Protein backbone atom coordinates (compact mmCIF):
# COMPACT_ATOMS: atom_id res chain seq x y z
CA UNK A 1 0.00 0.00 0.00
CA UNK A 2 2.64 2.49 1.04
CA UNK A 3 4.57 2.08 -2.21
CA UNK A 4 1.38 2.47 -4.24
CA UNK A 5 0.50 5.64 -2.37
CA UNK A 6 3.93 7.07 -3.01
CA UNK A 7 3.43 6.87 -6.74
CA UNK A 8 -0.13 8.11 -6.55
CA UNK A 9 0.19 10.96 -4.13
CA UNK A 10 0.28 14.65 -4.94
CA UNK A 11 3.49 16.64 -4.61
CA UNK A 12 3.67 19.51 -2.15
CA UNK A 13 3.25 21.91 -5.06
CA UNK A 14 0.11 20.10 -6.14
CA UNK A 15 -1.36 20.19 -2.63
CA UNK A 16 -0.57 23.91 -2.50
CA UNK A 17 -2.18 24.36 -5.92
CA UNK A 18 -5.37 22.67 -4.75
CA UNK A 19 -5.52 24.76 -1.57
CA UNK A 20 -4.99 27.90 -3.63
CA UNK A 21 -8.12 27.21 -5.69
CA UNK A 22 -10.28 27.79 -2.60
CA UNK A 23 -8.92 31.29 -1.92
CA UNK A 24 -11.81 33.57 -2.73
CA UNK A 25 -11.59 36.85 -4.55
CA UNK A 26 -11.03 39.61 -2.00
CA UNK A 27 -9.91 37.25 0.76
CA UNK A 28 -7.50 38.20 3.53
CA UNK A 29 -5.19 35.24 3.97
CA UNK A 30 -2.36 34.21 6.27
CA UNK A 31 -0.13 31.44 4.97
CA UNK A 32 1.89 29.74 7.70
CA UNK A 33 5.66 29.55 7.60
CA UNK A 34 7.13 26.88 5.32
CA UNK A 35 5.00 24.67 3.12
CA UNK A 36 1.81 26.83 3.26
CA UNK A 37 3.74 29.83 1.89
CA UNK A 38 3.92 27.96 -1.42
CA UNK A 39 0.16 28.43 -1.91
CA UNK A 40 0.66 32.06 -2.94
CA UNK A 41 2.44 30.90 -6.09
CA UNK A 42 -0.76 29.27 -7.28
CA UNK A 43 -3.18 32.09 -6.57
CA UNK A 44 -5.75 31.77 -9.37
CA UNK A 45 -5.77 34.40 -12.10
CA UNK A 46 -8.31 37.15 -11.65
CA UNK A 47 -8.64 36.72 -7.92
CA UNK A 48 -7.40 39.42 -5.59
CA UNK A 49 -6.01 38.04 -2.38
CA UNK A 50 -4.44 40.19 0.35
CA UNK A 51 -1.75 38.39 2.33
CA UNK A 52 -1.20 39.07 6.01
CA UNK A 53 1.97 38.32 7.89
CA UNK A 54 2.12 38.32 11.69
CA UNK A 55 5.07 40.69 11.83
CA UNK A 56 2.99 43.59 10.62
CA UNK A 57 2.43 43.70 6.87
CA UNK A 58 -0.79 43.44 4.89
CA UNK A 59 -0.66 43.26 1.11
CA UNK A 60 2.76 41.83 0.42
CA UNK A 61 3.91 40.16 -2.77
CA UNK A 62 6.57 37.79 -3.99
CA UNK A 63 10.15 37.54 -2.85
CA UNK A 64 12.49 40.13 -4.39
CA UNK A 65 15.28 39.06 -6.72
CA UNK A 66 18.42 37.83 -4.94
CA UNK A 67 20.50 40.82 -3.91
CA UNK A 68 17.44 43.09 -3.87
CA UNK A 69 16.38 42.14 -0.33
CA UNK A 70 15.59 44.79 2.24
CA UNK A 71 15.87 43.08 5.62
CA UNK A 72 13.37 45.47 7.17
CA UNK A 73 10.79 44.00 4.79
CA UNK A 74 10.34 40.34 5.70
CA UNK A 75 7.53 37.92 6.43
CA UNK A 76 6.93 35.79 9.51
CA UNK A 77 9.29 33.19 8.08
CA UNK A 78 11.94 35.92 8.02
CA UNK A 79 12.16 35.75 4.24
CA UNK A 80 12.43 38.96 2.24
CA UNK A 81 9.20 40.08 0.57
CA UNK A 82 7.95 42.93 -1.62
CA UNK A 83 4.88 45.14 -1.38
CA UNK A 84 1.83 45.39 -3.59
CA UNK A 85 0.00 48.72 -4.05
CA UNK A 86 -2.27 49.32 -1.09
CA UNK A 87 -0.04 47.60 1.46
CA UNK A 88 0.02 48.68 5.11
CA UNK A 89 2.41 48.39 8.04
CA UNK A 90 1.31 48.03 11.66
CA UNK A 91 2.71 46.82 14.96
CA UNK A 92 2.45 43.35 16.43
CA UNK A 93 -0.55 44.03 18.68
CA UNK A 94 -2.57 45.37 15.77
CA UNK A 95 -1.40 42.45 13.67
CA UNK A 96 -2.69 39.89 16.14
CA UNK A 97 -5.86 41.92 16.65
CA UNK A 98 -6.48 41.10 12.99
CA UNK A 99 -5.84 37.42 13.70
CA UNK A 100 -7.60 36.97 17.04
CA UNK A 101 -10.39 39.37 16.18
CA UNK A 102 -11.64 37.21 13.34
CA UNK A 103 -10.67 39.52 10.51
CA UNK A 104 -8.79 36.99 8.38
CA UNK A 105 -10.85 34.95 5.96
CA UNK A 106 -8.38 32.10 5.80
CA UNK A 107 -5.32 30.80 7.58
CA UNK A 108 -3.48 27.83 6.09
CA UNK A 109 -1.10 25.91 8.30
CA UNK A 110 1.02 22.79 8.26
CA UNK A 111 0.29 19.90 10.61
CA UNK A 112 1.85 17.02 12.44
CA UNK A 113 -1.58 15.67 13.28
CA UNK A 114 -5.22 16.66 12.77
CA UNK A 115 -8.07 15.08 14.72
CA UNK A 116 -11.62 14.50 13.52
CA UNK A 117 -12.84 16.99 16.13
CA UNK A 118 -10.70 19.67 14.44
CA UNK A 119 -7.89 19.61 16.98
CA UNK A 120 -4.53 20.51 15.49
CA UNK A 121 -1.02 19.55 16.56
CA UNK A 122 1.63 21.42 14.61
CA UNK A 123 4.02 23.11 17.03
CA UNK A 124 5.77 20.46 19.09
CA UNK A 125 6.83 16.89 18.50
CA UNK A 126 6.65 16.40 22.25
CA UNK A 127 10.30 15.35 22.35
CA UNK A 128 13.08 17.35 23.96
CA UNK A 129 14.83 20.19 22.23
CA UNK A 130 13.91 23.83 22.35
CA UNK A 131 10.17 24.50 22.31
CA UNK A 132 9.02 27.22 19.91
CA UNK A 133 5.44 28.18 19.17
CA UNK A 134 5.57 31.48 17.25
CA UNK A 135 2.17 32.59 16.03
CA UNK A 136 0.68 29.13 15.45
CA UNK A 137 -1.54 29.11 18.54
CA UNK A 138 -2.91 32.53 17.63
CA UNK A 139 -3.50 31.77 13.96
CA UNK A 140 -5.71 28.77 14.71
CA UNK A 141 -8.19 31.13 16.37
CA UNK A 142 -9.94 33.93 14.64
CA UNK A 143 -9.64 33.18 10.94
CA UNK A 144 -13.02 32.33 9.46
CA UNK A 145 -11.51 29.20 7.87
CA UNK A 146 -8.47 27.39 9.23
CA UNK A 147 -7.15 24.96 6.66
CA UNK A 148 -4.26 22.52 6.81
CA UNK A 149 -1.97 21.38 4.02
CA UNK A 150 -0.14 18.13 4.70
CA UNK A 151 0.97 14.79 3.43
CA UNK A 152 -1.75 12.29 4.19
CA UNK A 153 0.66 10.14 6.19
CA UNK A 154 3.98 10.58 7.96
CA UNK A 155 7.26 9.58 6.36
CA UNK A 156 6.88 6.26 8.13
CA UNK A 157 3.44 5.82 6.57
CA UNK A 158 1.49 6.47 9.76
CA UNK A 159 -1.79 8.36 9.56
CA UNK A 160 -1.71 12.10 10.34
CA UNK A 161 -5.50 12.33 10.38
CA UNK A 162 -6.58 10.75 13.65
CA UNK A 163 -9.45 10.31 16.06
CA UNK A 164 -7.48 12.30 18.59
CA UNK A 165 -4.08 13.98 18.36
CA UNK A 166 -1.32 12.32 20.36
CA UNK A 167 1.12 15.24 20.09
CA UNK A 168 0.84 18.49 22.07
CA UNK A 169 -2.06 20.52 20.73
CA UNK A 170 -1.85 23.85 18.98
CA UNK A 171 -5.58 24.46 19.22
CA UNK A 172 -8.85 22.72 19.94
CA UNK A 173 -11.52 22.19 17.30
CA UNK A 174 -10.01 24.78 15.02
CA UNK A 175 -9.39 23.06 11.66
CA UNK A 176 -12.16 23.38 9.08
CA UNK A 177 -10.55 21.72 6.02
CA UNK A 178 -7.54 19.51 5.30
CA UNK A 179 -5.78 19.35 1.94
CA UNK A 180 -3.67 16.20 1.87
CA UNK A 181 -1.58 14.43 -0.74
CA UNK A 182 -4.54 12.12 -1.33
CA UNK A 183 -7.75 13.93 -0.52
CA UNK A 184 -9.66 17.03 0.53
CA UNK A 185 -11.43 16.49 3.81
CA UNK A 186 -13.68 18.80 5.83
CA UNK A 187 -14.13 18.77 9.58
CA UNK A 188 -17.85 18.94 10.31
CA UNK A 189 -19.56 18.33 13.63
CA UNK A 190 -16.55 16.49 14.96
CA UNK A 191 -16.16 14.12 11.99
CA UNK A 192 -13.99 13.94 8.88
CA UNK A 193 -16.12 14.36 5.77
CA UNK A 194 -14.48 13.32 2.50
CA UNK A 195 -14.99 15.90 -0.26
CA UNK A 196 -12.43 14.91 -2.89
CA UNK A 197 -10.04 12.02 -3.41
CA UNK A 198 -7.55 11.06 -6.06
CA UNK A 199 -9.61 9.19 -8.68
CA UNK A 200 -7.15 6.31 -8.88
CA UNK A 201 -7.48 5.69 -5.13
CA UNK A 202 -10.29 3.56 -3.75
CA UNK A 203 -12.23 4.77 -0.74
CA UNK A 204 -11.08 1.67 1.16
CA UNK A 205 -7.42 2.38 0.48
CA UNK A 206 -7.86 5.99 1.59
CA UNK A 207 -9.65 4.89 4.74
CA UNK A 208 -6.87 2.41 5.49
CA UNK A 209 -4.29 5.22 5.75
CA UNK A 210 -6.60 7.51 7.72
CA UNK A 211 -6.74 7.19 11.51
CA UNK A 212 -10.41 8.06 11.90
CA UNK A 213 -13.56 7.22 10.02
CA UNK A 214 -14.15 9.14 6.80
CA UNK A 215 -17.80 10.09 6.41
CA UNK A 216 -19.38 10.73 3.05
CA UNK A 217 -22.09 13.35 2.75
CA UNK A 218 -23.18 13.71 -0.84
CA UNK A 219 -20.79 13.30 -3.75
CA UNK A 220 -17.08 12.74 -3.47
CA UNK A 221 -15.42 14.65 -6.28
CA UNK A 222 -12.22 13.73 -8.05
CA UNK A 223 -9.19 15.53 -6.66
CA UNK A 224 -7.83 16.81 -9.96
CA UNK A 225 -4.67 18.88 -10.10
CA UNK A 226 -2.31 19.77 -12.94
CA UNK A 227 1.22 18.44 -13.39
CA UNK A 228 3.47 20.92 -11.59
Amino acid at each position, binding site marked *: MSAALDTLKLSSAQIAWRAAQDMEDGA*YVNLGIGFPEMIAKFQPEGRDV*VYHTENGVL*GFGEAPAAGEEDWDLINAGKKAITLKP*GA*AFFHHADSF*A*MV*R*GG*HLDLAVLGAYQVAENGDLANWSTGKGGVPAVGGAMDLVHGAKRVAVVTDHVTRKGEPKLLKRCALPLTGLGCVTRVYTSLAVIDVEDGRFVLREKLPQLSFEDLQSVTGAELKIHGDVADLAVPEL
Partner: protein
Amino acid sequence: MNKTIAFASEAVAGIGDGTTVMIGGFGGSGAPIELIHALIDAGPKNLTIINNNAGNGHVGLAALIEQGMVAKMICSFPRSADPKVFTDLYLAGKIELEIVPQGTLAERIRAGGAGIPAFYTPTSYGTELAEGKLVAEFEGRHYVQERWLKADFALIKAELGDPLGNLTYRMAARNFNPLMATAATRTVAQVTRIVAAGEIDPEQVVTPGIFVDGIVEVPDPEQEESLNREGAVYP
Protein backbone atom coordinates in the same frame (compact mmCIF):
# COMPACT_ATOMS: atom_id res chain seq x y z
CA MET B 1 -10.53 44.80 -5.01
CA ASN B 2 -12.79 47.82 -4.91
CA LYS B 3 -14.69 48.70 -1.77
CA THR B 4 -15.98 51.97 -3.14
CA ILE B 5 -19.69 52.65 -2.67
CA ALA B 6 -21.25 55.35 -4.82
CA PHE B 7 -23.87 56.74 -2.44
CA ALA B 8 -24.22 57.17 1.29
CA SER B 9 -27.74 55.76 0.98
CA GLU B 10 -26.28 52.53 -0.33
CA ALA B 11 -23.69 52.46 2.46
CA VAL B 12 -26.34 52.39 5.20
CA ALA B 13 -28.82 50.20 3.34
CA GLY B 14 -28.09 47.14 5.47
CA ILE B 15 -28.93 48.80 8.76
CA GLY B 16 -32.31 47.42 9.75
CA ASP B 17 -34.51 47.77 12.81
CA GLY B 18 -32.81 46.77 16.05
CA THR B 19 -29.28 47.04 14.68
CA THR B 20 -26.36 47.98 16.94
CA VAL B 21 -24.36 50.74 15.26
CA MET B 22 -21.07 52.28 16.31
CA ILE B 23 -20.78 55.87 15.12
CA GLY B 24 -17.35 57.46 15.17
CA GLY B 25 -16.49 60.88 16.47
CA PHE B 26 -15.89 62.77 19.68
CA GLY B 27 -18.48 65.47 19.81
CA GLY B 28 -18.50 66.80 16.27
CA SER B 29 -14.88 66.01 15.38
CA GLY B 30 -14.77 62.84 13.33
CA ALA B 31 -18.55 62.47 13.26
CA PRO B 32 -19.69 61.04 9.91
CA ILE B 33 -22.52 63.54 9.49
CA GLU B 34 -23.40 62.58 5.92
CA LEU B 35 -23.62 58.87 6.79
CA ILE B 36 -25.77 59.65 9.82
CA HIS B 37 -28.08 61.77 7.70
CA ALA B 38 -28.34 58.96 5.15
CA LEU B 39 -29.27 56.67 8.03
CA ILE B 40 -31.98 59.12 9.10
CA ASP B 41 -33.30 59.07 5.53
CA ALA B 42 -33.34 55.25 5.62
CA GLY B 43 -35.30 55.37 8.86
CA PRO B 44 -34.66 52.10 10.77
CA LYS B 45 -36.06 51.95 14.31
CA ASN B 46 -34.92 50.68 17.71
CA LEU B 47 -31.23 51.24 17.05
CA THR B 48 -28.60 50.84 19.72
CA ILE B 49 -25.97 53.51 19.13
CA ILE B 50 -22.44 53.47 20.50
CA ASN B 51 -20.74 56.87 20.48
CA ASN B 52 -18.82 58.87 23.05
CA ASN B 53 -21.62 61.41 23.30
CA ALA B 54 -25.35 61.70 22.65
CA GLY B 55 -25.44 64.40 20.05
CA ASN B 56 -25.56 68.15 20.04
CA GLY B 57 -28.10 70.47 18.46
CA HIS B 58 -30.40 69.12 15.74
CA VAL B 59 -28.05 67.51 13.24
CA GLY B 60 -26.08 64.26 13.09
CA LEU B 61 -26.51 61.98 16.08
CA ALA B 62 -28.84 64.44 17.85
CA ALA B 63 -31.11 64.41 14.80
CA LEU B 64 -31.04 60.60 14.69
CA ILE B 65 -32.20 60.58 18.31
CA GLU B 66 -34.75 63.32 17.65
CA GLN B 67 -36.31 61.17 14.93
CA GLY B 68 -37.06 58.53 17.55
CA MET B 69 -34.85 55.97 15.85
CA VAL B 70 -32.64 55.23 18.86
CA ALA B 71 -33.76 52.89 21.63
CA LYS B 72 -30.47 52.83 23.53
CA MET B 73 -27.29 54.89 23.77
CA ILE B 74 -23.99 53.48 24.99
CA CYS B 75 -21.73 56.44 25.70
CA SER B 76 -19.50 58.18 28.24
CA PHE B 77 -20.79 61.74 28.15
CA PRO B 78 -24.36 62.45 27.00
CA ARG B 79 -24.02 66.13 27.82
CA SER B 80 -23.11 68.88 25.40
CA ALA B 81 -23.73 72.53 24.67
CA ASP B 82 -27.24 71.66 23.48
CA PRO B 83 -28.15 68.14 24.51
CA LYS B 84 -31.86 68.91 24.75
CA VAL B 85 -32.95 66.14 22.41
CA PHE B 86 -31.34 63.34 24.37
CA THR B 87 -32.06 64.88 27.76
CA ASP B 88 -35.79 65.21 27.11
CA LEU B 89 -36.14 61.63 25.88
CA TYR B 90 -34.01 60.27 28.71
CA LEU B 91 -35.93 62.11 31.42
CA ALA B 92 -39.17 60.93 29.81
CA GLY B 93 -37.91 57.35 30.03
CA LYS B 94 -38.05 56.97 26.26
CA ILE B 95 -34.40 56.10 25.65
CA GLU B 96 -32.13 53.70 27.48
CA LEU B 97 -28.63 54.78 28.56
CA GLU B 98 -25.55 52.70 29.36
CA ILE B 99 -22.92 55.02 30.74
CA VAL B 100 -19.32 53.82 30.30
CA PRO B 101 -16.14 55.62 31.36
CA GLN B 102 -14.46 57.01 28.26
CA GLY B 103 -11.27 54.99 28.49
CA THR B 104 -13.21 51.84 29.24
CA LEU B 105 -15.46 52.53 26.27
CA ALA B 106 -12.41 52.86 24.02
CA GLU B 107 -10.78 49.73 25.42
CA ARG B 108 -13.99 47.67 25.20
CA ILE B 109 -14.29 48.57 21.52
CA ARG B 110 -10.64 47.77 20.91
CA ALA B 111 -11.16 44.44 22.71
CA GLY B 112 -14.15 43.71 20.49
CA GLY B 113 -11.99 44.21 17.43
CA ALA B 114 -9.02 42.30 18.84
CA GLY B 115 -10.84 39.14 19.97
CA ILE B 116 -10.36 39.85 23.68
CA PRO B 117 -13.67 39.01 25.39
CA ALA B 118 -12.77 40.58 28.74
CA PHE B 119 -10.04 42.58 30.46
CA TYR B 120 -9.36 44.19 33.80
CA THR B 121 -9.10 47.92 34.37
CA PRO B 122 -8.64 50.06 37.48
CA THR B 123 -11.20 52.50 36.08
CA SER B 124 -14.47 52.69 38.04
CA TYR B 125 -13.31 50.36 40.82
CA GLY B 126 -15.23 51.21 43.97
CA THR B 127 -17.75 53.42 42.14
CA GLU B 128 -21.37 52.87 41.26
CA LEU B 129 -20.40 52.23 37.63
CA ALA B 130 -18.66 49.04 38.79
CA GLU B 131 -21.72 47.66 40.55
CA GLY B 132 -22.47 44.09 39.51
CA LYS B 133 -19.11 43.68 37.80
CA LEU B 134 -16.45 41.13 38.69
CA VAL B 135 -13.52 42.47 40.68
CA ALA B 136 -10.08 40.88 40.96
CA GLU B 137 -6.86 41.80 42.69
CA PHE B 138 -3.56 41.86 40.82
CA GLU B 139 -0.32 42.81 42.51
CA GLY B 140 -2.17 44.30 45.47
CA ARG B 141 -4.53 46.53 43.54
CA HIS B 142 -8.20 46.06 42.63
CA TYR B 143 -9.50 45.98 39.10
CA VAL B 144 -12.88 45.67 37.44
CA GLN B 145 -13.59 43.15 34.70
CA GLU B 146 -15.00 44.71 31.55
CA ARG B 147 -16.33 42.95 28.46
CA TRP B 148 -15.69 43.56 24.79
CA LEU B 149 -18.09 45.69 22.81
CA LYS B 150 -19.01 44.85 19.22
CA ALA B 151 -21.55 46.10 16.75
CA ASP B 152 -23.36 45.03 13.62
CA PHE B 153 -22.32 48.19 11.82
CA ALA B 154 -19.74 50.92 12.21
CA LEU B 155 -20.20 54.26 10.47
CA ILE B 156 -16.96 56.19 10.57
CA LYS B 157 -15.31 59.27 9.12
CA ALA B 158 -11.83 59.27 7.63
CA GLU B 159 -9.73 61.57 5.49
CA LEU B 160 -8.16 59.54 2.66
CA GLY B 161 -9.35 56.11 1.57
CA ASP B 162 -8.19 53.78 -1.17
CA PRO B 163 -10.19 51.06 -2.94
CA LEU B 164 -8.74 48.43 -0.57
CA GLY B 165 -10.23 50.34 2.36
CA ASN B 166 -6.99 51.70 3.79
CA LEU B 167 -7.72 54.90 5.72
CA THR B 168 -6.05 57.96 7.18
CA TYR B 169 -7.68 60.47 9.51
CA ARG B 170 -7.50 64.20 10.06
CA MET B 171 -6.10 65.52 13.35
CA ALA B 172 -8.26 64.88 16.42
CA ALA B 173 -11.03 63.56 14.20
CA ARG B 174 -9.24 60.22 14.53
CA ASN B 175 -10.55 59.51 18.09
CA PHE B 176 -12.87 56.45 18.18
CA ASN B 177 -12.98 55.95 14.40
CA PRO B 178 -10.06 53.50 13.99
CA LEU B 179 -11.29 51.45 16.96
CA MET B 180 -14.86 51.19 15.76
CA ALA B 181 -13.62 50.16 12.32
CA THR B 182 -12.28 46.97 13.90
CA ALA B 183 -15.25 46.04 16.08
CA ALA B 184 -18.21 45.85 13.72
CA THR B 185 -19.40 43.10 11.43
CA ARG B 186 -19.61 45.69 8.67
CA THR B 187 -17.65 48.94 8.62
CA VAL B 188 -18.36 51.78 6.22
CA ALA B 189 -16.24 54.92 6.11
CA GLN B 190 -17.00 58.25 4.57
CA VAL B 191 -13.77 59.74 3.30
CA THR B 192 -12.97 63.20 2.04
CA ARG B 193 -11.06 61.79 -0.91
CA ILE B 194 -10.65 58.41 -2.54
CA VAL B 195 -7.16 57.85 -3.91
CA ALA B 196 -5.72 55.01 -5.97
CA ALA B 197 -4.27 51.94 -4.25
CA GLY B 198 -0.67 52.73 -3.40
CA GLU B 199 -1.20 56.48 -3.02
CA ILE B 200 -1.37 56.16 0.76
CA ASP B 201 2.13 55.42 2.01
CA PRO B 202 1.99 52.01 3.76
CA GLU B 203 3.72 53.64 6.75
CA GLN B 204 0.90 56.16 7.08
CA VAL B 205 -2.10 53.88 6.88
CA VAL B 206 -3.92 54.20 10.21
CA THR B 207 -6.72 51.72 9.51
CA PRO B 208 -5.62 48.86 7.24
CA GLY B 209 -8.26 47.86 4.71
CA ILE B 210 -8.89 44.50 6.34
CA PHE B 211 -11.14 46.31 8.81
CA VAL B 212 -13.15 48.21 6.22
CA ASP B 213 -15.99 46.92 4.05
CA GLY B 214 -17.03 50.03 2.18
CA ILE B 215 -15.92 53.60 1.52
CA VAL B 216 -18.03 56.50 0.26
CA GLU B 217 -16.45 59.71 -0.93
CA VAL B 218 -17.92 62.82 0.74
CA PRO B 219 -15.87 65.84 -0.35
CA ASP B 220 -16.12 68.87 1.97
CA PRO B 221 -17.92 67.02 4.75
CA GLU B 222 -20.09 69.01 7.14
CA GLN B 223 -18.79 69.80 10.62
CA GLU B 224 -21.35 69.34 13.38
CA GLU B 225 -19.97 72.34 15.25
CA SER B 226 -20.38 74.64 12.23
CA LEU B 227 -23.86 73.33 11.46
CA ASN B 228 -24.96 73.95 15.03
CA ARG B 229 -23.55 77.46 15.03
CA GLU B 230 -25.72 78.08 11.96
CA GLY B 231 -28.73 76.61 13.76
CA ALA B 232 -29.07 73.83 11.22
CA VAL B 233 -31.78 71.21 11.62
CA TYR B 234 -31.93 67.83 9.88
CA PRO B 235 -33.87 66.69 8.02
